[in-house]
């Protein structure tokens, strides 16, 4: 899958071919900082001063680089597609290779960041259980009633929540069996076929 670079994006990136590889590496580091923590304008002006260009050029090329890394990580492009996509920029081979190395180095981190940005459903984090026998209650003395307390921990958008649920042996075994069936379903012929087909 090839990346489609807009004209504007190309102009922003073209600055990279005029500077040393070490500067590109530094820009890449700033881009990763940007992705993780947001923009740091002080860095732009510092770098612009050192290189003797205006701040806007630095900002645009850092953002261009960032966009390139994010887009290619989003599509999870392979080496050939990545190199083919940036060929259009007309950089020399060394710079192309350096860009690919930077992409390869950072793509898994960018993908996990993108993953955490995706819509987050309440999801399972932990389960605690406790086995009890109810011995007596206001309405019934002298009883032996096995009961299981479950405490389910979930998390949504980083906010943890807890659900306390009580159940009896029959329901516990039903729950366990149902979820075991669900787990086994993933290995079924149907699921494997579809998943292979989509990949």
């Amino acid at each position: 899958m090839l990346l489609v670079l807009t004209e504007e994006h190309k102009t922003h990136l073209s600055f990279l071919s005029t500077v040393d590889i070490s500067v590109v590496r530094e820009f890449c580091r700033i881009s990763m900082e940007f992705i993780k923590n947001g923009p740091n304008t002080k860095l732009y002006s510092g770098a612009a001063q050192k290189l003797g260009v205006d701040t806007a050029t630095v900002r645009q090329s850092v953002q261009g680089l960032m966009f390139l890394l994010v887009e290619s990580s989003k599509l999870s492009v392979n080496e050939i597609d990545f190199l083919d996509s940036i060929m259009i920029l007309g950089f020399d081979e060394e710079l192309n290779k350096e860009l690919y190395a930077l992409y390869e180095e950072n793509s898994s981190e960018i993908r996990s960041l993108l993953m955490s940005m995706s819509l987050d459903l309440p999801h399972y984090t932990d389960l605690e259980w406790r086995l009890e026998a109810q011995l007596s209650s206001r309405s019934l003395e002298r009883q032996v009633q096995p009961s299981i307390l479950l405490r389910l921990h979930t998390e949504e958008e980083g906010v943890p929540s807890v659900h306390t649920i009580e159940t009896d042996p029959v329901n516990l075994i039903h729950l366990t069996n149902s979820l075991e069936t669900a787990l086994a379903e993933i290995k079924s012929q149907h699921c494997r076929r579809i998943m292979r087909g989509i990949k």
Partner: protein
Amino acid sequence: MELSGSTVTGLQLAGSSSIDDKSFNRLTQLVLQSIMEDTDPSIIQDDGKLSKINQGMLKECYSSLIILLIEGARTDTDTTGMRSTLEDCKLTPDRIEVLVTLYNDNKAKLRARLGRIRSSFPYLTDVNWRLDYYIKSNHLERVDKPVYTISLNTEEGDGKKKDVIFSCTQEQLQDLVGKLKDASKSLEKFSQQ
């Protein structure tokens, strides 16, 4: 089994000759039905066979018999205890026999009924699951991961139904099932002891 003074008076009334044997048998059946099916107490007023009896007295007997059966079942009183309580109330031997038989035949059911009156955390009644394949999102292409959505159906003390819905990955579900299996296994071990 300990009964209050007014209950004892009610039982003495039920055992007295102001209520004939037929009405007494009918009344005990209605008492049992009231407890088991949670019927409206007005059934005793509407019952043709009991219409000859003074309404005030009927109500007193009815409530005392209900207390007798529930209190007996609640405290797990045995036949001997039940018999001696009734003897203390000066009931005739054949009426004592009717009540003791009724109590013995239905004690398990009465206790099960009382066992259902309980305060509890949301109670698990059923589970539903769904398996999806997460292909891509606006942020990320080629995610390609299976995702489970699990819904635990629970019922709260007042009968309100509530579902706990959460998603989990294959690894998370494995963890969950592992822990549930641990719980089931220790339950099994415990029940064999």
